């Protein structure tokens, strides 16, 4: 299974996103793109405010999981392209940490595809997040409620 670049050290910059968009402009069969961006929220938890999330991952396993997820999504949805990027390291509130980008001839499938990818990455990919508060204490983020 081909392993594509997924992890990016530091925040995902708006210019990285526009470069990705620009690269798809030579593909003249694409009619619609859908993009999800995850942004670090300054959540307030018991009176303390999240200043940043420090992400780590079990990278070997994560890349295998994402390769499987990609393969399944291409079978499930009618897509031309699919890209998944996630930040590692300390991402401050307001910065972007997660970028899912799907493209297709017609827009029908793209919303469901993006939603599926975002949710399954949160659920199945071994990424860990330390929520660092403004007072430098921390707690461990969890996607399981």
């Amino acid at each position, binding site marked *: 299974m081909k392993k594509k670049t997924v992890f990016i050290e530091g925040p995902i910059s708006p210019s990285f996103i526009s470069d990705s968009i620009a690269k798809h402009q030579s593909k003249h069969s694409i009619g619609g793109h859908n993009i999800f961006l*995850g942004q670090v929220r300054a959540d307030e938890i018991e009176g303390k405010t999240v200043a940043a*999330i420090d*992400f*780590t*991952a*079990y990278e*070997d*396993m994560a890349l*295998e999981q994402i390769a499987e997820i990609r393969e399944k999504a291409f079978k499930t949805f009618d897509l031309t392209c699919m890209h998944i990027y*996630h930040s590692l390291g300390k991402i401050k509130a307001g910065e972007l*940490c*997660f970028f899912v980008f799907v493209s297709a001839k017609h827009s029908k499938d793209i919303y469901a595809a993006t939603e599926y990818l*975002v949710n399954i*990455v*949160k*659920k*199945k*990919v*071994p*990424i*860990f*997040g*330390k929520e660092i508060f403004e007072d430098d204490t921390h707690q*461990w*983020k*969890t*996607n*399981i409620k």
Partner: protein
Amino acid sequence: MITIKYFGMLAEHTKCTEEQMDFKALKLSELVQDLKVKYQLNPASFHVALNHKLVQDSEDVTLQFQDEIALLPPFAGG
């Protein structure tokens, strides 16, 4: 040789991200039990991966030479 990796809050708790031990033909469940005792781990706080795959029932698995085990706390991507 067997490699054991710790992530997130577990790495914080064990003060260790990776350790190696000599190969023994243990059941995976026995190894995990040893680690729980060694580090006083809460069994509800992690899943176990063997060679990059989550293990449903570690009773069924006997360790092979050069296996990579990982103790994974709840995922938090996104």
